[in-house]
């Protein structure tokens, strides 16, 4: 249980990581503020403000990048700079890696919740169901952390793992068709709907807004299933790398 005493310091490190705070908190807040000014007063065919959709997508999209902190801390502590020190420290390194995973996901979740609170309190956006949205933010945070751990443990070079995590984040944003429409093809259609954690979680929140809980649980459970599938993969890869 010596790992428990390190959690406090992991959290402190996370909170003092100004670049992450800039990228995952300040940038979305700035973007959302600009969007709220641009899109104010515009509604879609169903009479819902465009900004609702944008805010929801952005809050969830930034969770795709939340795992990068977990990745860089794991690399720093267990594979690169502090490797020798950690090897002689009298604690279970696997458990320590797991505590970083949990702390990183929690931090990413907190940032997502902070952005949500900002949209509610400052921009005056009304979220249909707070709890459900937070649940999906949590799922996305955990998923992205797990994916990043798989990358950092599965690839030899850290910079390659970093690029892969960027591909994961940017790739799913592109596949969701946020920047330009994807071509009409079965593969792209699947990756823009049920094969994409971003569209799944956005879909789950939207389904709740219209009261369709069955669809909401279905979409959220697919993300949960992805976590359930990737977790053992992560365990196997992490144990191999840490041995």
């Amino acid at each position, binding site marked *: 249980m010596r790992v428990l005493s390190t959690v406090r310091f992991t959290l402190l490190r996370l909170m003092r990581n100004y*670049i992450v705070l*800039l*990228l995952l908190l*300040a*940038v979305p807040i*700035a*973007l959302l503020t*600009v*969007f709220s*000014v*641009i*899109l*104010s007063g*515009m509604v879609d065919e169903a009479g819902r403000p465009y900004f609702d959709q944008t805010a929801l997508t952005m809050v969830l999209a930034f969770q795709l990048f939340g795992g990068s902190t977990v990745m860089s801390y794991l690399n720093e502590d267990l594979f690169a700079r502090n490797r020798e020190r950690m090897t002689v420290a009298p604690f279970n390194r696997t458990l320590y890696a797991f505590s970083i995973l949990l702390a990183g996901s929690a931090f990413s979740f907190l940032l997502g919740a902070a952005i949500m609170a900002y949209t509610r309190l400052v921009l005056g956006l009304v979220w249909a169901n707070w709890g459900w949205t937070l649940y999906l933010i949590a799922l996305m945070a955990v998923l992205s952390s797990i994916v990043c751990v798989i990358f950092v443990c599965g690839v030899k070079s850290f*910079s*390659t793992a970093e*690029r892969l995590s960027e591909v994961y984040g940017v790739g799913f944003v592109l596949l969701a068709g946020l*920047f*330009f*429409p994807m*071509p009409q093809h079965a593969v792209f259609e699947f990756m823009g709907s049920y094969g994409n954690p971003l569209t799944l979680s956005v879909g789950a929140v939207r389904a709740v807004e219209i009261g369709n809980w069955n669809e909401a649980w279905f979409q959220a459970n697919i993300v949960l299933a992805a976590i359930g599938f990737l977790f053992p993969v992560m365990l196997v890869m992490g144990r191999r790398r840490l041995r």
Partner: protein
Amino acid sequence: MTIFYFTLKRSFANLANLIFLTAAPIACIFLPAGEGWPPLAYGYAYFGIVILFVAIRLAQIMMEDRVKGILKRLSVAPVRYFSYLGQHLLAYAVILILQSAVVVLGGWIAGQELHRPWALFALYVSFSFAALAMALAWISVFRSKDAAFLFYMSLIVLAALLGGIILPLEIFPDLLRRIAVILPTFWFAEGLKSIASAQPFADNVRINATLCLYALVFLVLGSTRRMQ
């Protein structure tokens, strides 16, 4: 021209840079066209963002020189700072011009509607100069490579949004539309619009001249700081 030659080599040295410098422009050629917006196909608007990213990535090579102390060693070598800077910038400009040529030529071959390919190429080249000068000015105030890149990345996203590359400026409120004029990205988007709507030639010249003016101003700002 030794420095020029080695800068070119270094720019393509690592795999991530190589993929980024070659694949991104090619991907831009094949993006679909939107309905009414953007004026040219999506890839031709997003290529402006690609140019900004390429410029900062390339300029980081010079930053690395400064941070690692290579510049100090160079200062005792019989190389003037002016020639060091000039040859580096020339190499980056050559890469960016080649990329622009690939995008325009590739689009022409692939049958994208480009309206006036030469004007488009000129716009990309002058925007590349502006982007390069901005990146130079940006890296001159930073010490850490990562911080410089990540800060700049967030600025690129904001500038692209506010300048009208991602969303049409027409839907912006009046105040934002006026503020947008000070951003180079606004002039880039304006240039695309003028090419697509077949404005007179003088209009293109005006936009290109504005972008070159940005390049000049940022070049002066960026090249004043030497070796520290």
